[in-house]
């Protein structure tokens, strides 16, 4: 039987390059939505683009899709320079936040649209008349078979003849995914596909999307504002803010080794603790006169510590307890650093003794995991992490 779903010759070779964005810039009036952004997604790779609302991540995705054009810069997909091409000619598939299903078509017809648009001529798609064009029946049959296959892989078999309004949010989302994978695109773009699902379904669908990505193997760019999605799903995470990509790295590196204070504060929940610090002429880092045992080049600094990298100690940074939150697997302790009044959060083991609210305490830090940033927010390398204390510093 004639089947059109095999990739055309040469496509395997072209796929090698995935998505490459070079110096893409986009301005809306005075606002620079994209500021010379460069990013590449290898074939088979899953890159999550994460950032707060309005940081330009959706604009970047739309520029890649061809829905919007960049003022300058180049986009390459599957080895082709697609900068000047229309969205229809870019061989990308996209899943939209609202799913963007055609409400008047059944699930089956929705999934068939990208195939019909590509495999049938304008005349063959013409209502009624098209059925009598030579070759239409054969191609329609091939499209129908591909639709059933794509829908089957997403468990949509029973629902194919329903319209979007008759489907639940999760089912609509699968139809949108099926419509995207049915034509084996060179690049797969997803714009916050989970944000319209309820929390339980979101966690389940997260896994399914990763699974689909493994099967399809296309370069995937996934836009989200939810760091949990980015960290759990992606091979690499790109953190974006104010039109710039701050860091692209593996989820572990983004969390443990952020190169920018904005990355450190954006990723991680609860938010990373930050304290104003200073390195004296000898390079000793102090917080409000209390030495931390860290060494850095002299100057003003920001000391950043994850909630799990602080702990109660007999001496150290003075603080006052404000309240406790029991989370089951851990206890969050909210406190205030007494000299600077900075808010601090600690993650304690549920078995550990807990101080009372209002109690004065002292905190020690884990020097191996302490992060230092300079006045511009750039990561500062420690000159000697463990100059004074072998492990936890009690000062």
């Amino acid at each position: 039987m004639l089947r059109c779903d095999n990739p055309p010759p040469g496509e395997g070779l072209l796929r090698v390059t995935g998505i490459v964005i070079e110096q893409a810039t986009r301005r809306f009036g005075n606002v620079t939505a994209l500021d010379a952004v460069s990013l590449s997604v290898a074939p088979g790779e899953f890159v999550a683009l994460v950032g707060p609302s309005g940081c330009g991540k959706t604009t970047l995705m739309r520029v890649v899709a061809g829905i919007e054009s960049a003022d300058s810069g180049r986009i390459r997909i599957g080895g082709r320079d697609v900068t000047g091409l229309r969205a229809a000619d870019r061989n990308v598939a996209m899943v939209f936040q609202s799913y963007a299903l055609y409400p008047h078509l059944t699930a089956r017809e929705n999934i068939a649209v990208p195939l019909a648009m590509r495999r049938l001529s304008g005349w063959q798609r013409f209502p009624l008349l098209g059925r009598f064009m030579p070759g239409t029946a054969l191609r329609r049959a091939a499209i129908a078979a591909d639709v059933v296959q794509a829908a089957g892989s997403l468990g949509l078999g029973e629902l194919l003849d329903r319209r979007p309004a008759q489907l639940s949010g999760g089912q609509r989302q699968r139809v949108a995914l099926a419509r995207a994978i049915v034509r084996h695109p060179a690049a797969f773009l997803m714009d916050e596909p989970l944000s319209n699902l309820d929390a339980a379904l979101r966690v389940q669908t997260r896994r399914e999307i990763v699974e689909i990505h493994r099967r399809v193997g296309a370069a995937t760019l996934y836009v989200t504002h939810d760091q949990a999605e980015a960290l759990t799903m992606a091979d690499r995470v790109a953190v974006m803010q104010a039109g710039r990509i701050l860091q692209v790295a593996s989820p572990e590196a983004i969390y443990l080794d952020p190169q920018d204070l904005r990355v450190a504060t954006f990723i991680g929940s609860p938010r990373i603790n930050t304290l104003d610090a200073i390195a004296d002429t000898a390079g000793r880092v102090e917080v409000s006169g209390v030495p931390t045992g860290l060494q850095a080049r002299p100057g003003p600094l920001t000391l950043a510590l994850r909630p799990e990298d602080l702990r109660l100690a007999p001496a150290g940074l003075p603080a006052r307890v404000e309240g406790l939150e029991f989370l089951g697997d851990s206890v969050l302790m909210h406190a205030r650093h007494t000299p600077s009044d900075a808010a601090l959060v600690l993650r304690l083991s549920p078995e550990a003794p807990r101080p009372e609210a209002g109690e004065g305490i002292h905190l020690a830090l884990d020097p191996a995991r302490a992060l230092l940033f300079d006045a511009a927010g750039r990561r500062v390398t420690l000159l000697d992490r463990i100059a004074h204390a072998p492990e936890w510093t009690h000062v």
Partner: protein
Amino acid sequence: MSDSIAAAPPRHRPLVGEALAGLLLTVPAGIAYLLMLLLPTAATILLAFTDYELGLPGFAWIGLGNFEELLEDRGFAIAFRNTVIYVGLVAPLSILLGLGAALLIEAGIRGRALFRAVFFLPVVSLTVAMAAAWQYLLHPTIGPLNAFLRTLGMTAPPFWLSSSDWVLLSLSAIGVWENVGYNMVLFLAGLTAIPRELHHAAEVDGARGWLDRFRLVTWPLLGPTTLFVLTITMIRSIRVFDTVAVLTQGGPNKASEVLLHTMYKEGFTFLRLGYSAAITLVFLAMVLGLVWLQTKALDKRVHYG
């Protein structure tokens, strides 16, 4: 235990009060509806079965007499036919042109407000006043249209409003001009309600051409709007009266006689209110029939619930 049940506050009390207040609040609207709509309609229905003439002392119940007369009345038959032709021309043309104007304005970058206003102007202007302008425009000797046709070399341009071949077409053209702006505004509202993401999805899915995107997204999603526009335009054009009354009085030789004008003449010129009421009932039946047909036949096909 029985104490606590007895002590439970009577919870239905405020609800009754609320329902009563609600009912009271609907009274003004209810009275208006009754006086302005239901009673006149009932009176018309009753009148249609009498031979009542304004100024005569009594009247007699004549059953279906008026309707029998209608069937044999050549003037009514012409008016009915003309009204159907008028609606058949004005509704499709003004809908298509209104849709076209809306699509062009929506796609345009500059001058949206200007074009909206220009096309909407006929809707807000007074038809009777505008009819005078049309009378001048279409005047056989001094009218600019025929002057223009003569410069093109046409020796005997048509008498637009006084030739029985042309008069209905001329009135239809004015009807289209009157309705396009209204339909355009409705279509513009319908177009802005289409989610932009759907157009983007169509683009990514491979709909390259304008026509592909129109067929895949715009036209189906305009379905409910189009149904509404169709209903409204048919009702608006079936009601054609003022242009006929001002420009032609149904002439020449009943060539532009329409239902409402016939009704008006029977009722207010010949004072045959019973007969006129029968014509009104025919008109009412046509309007209700159209609305029923459109909602029954098409509603299910344009709402994708």
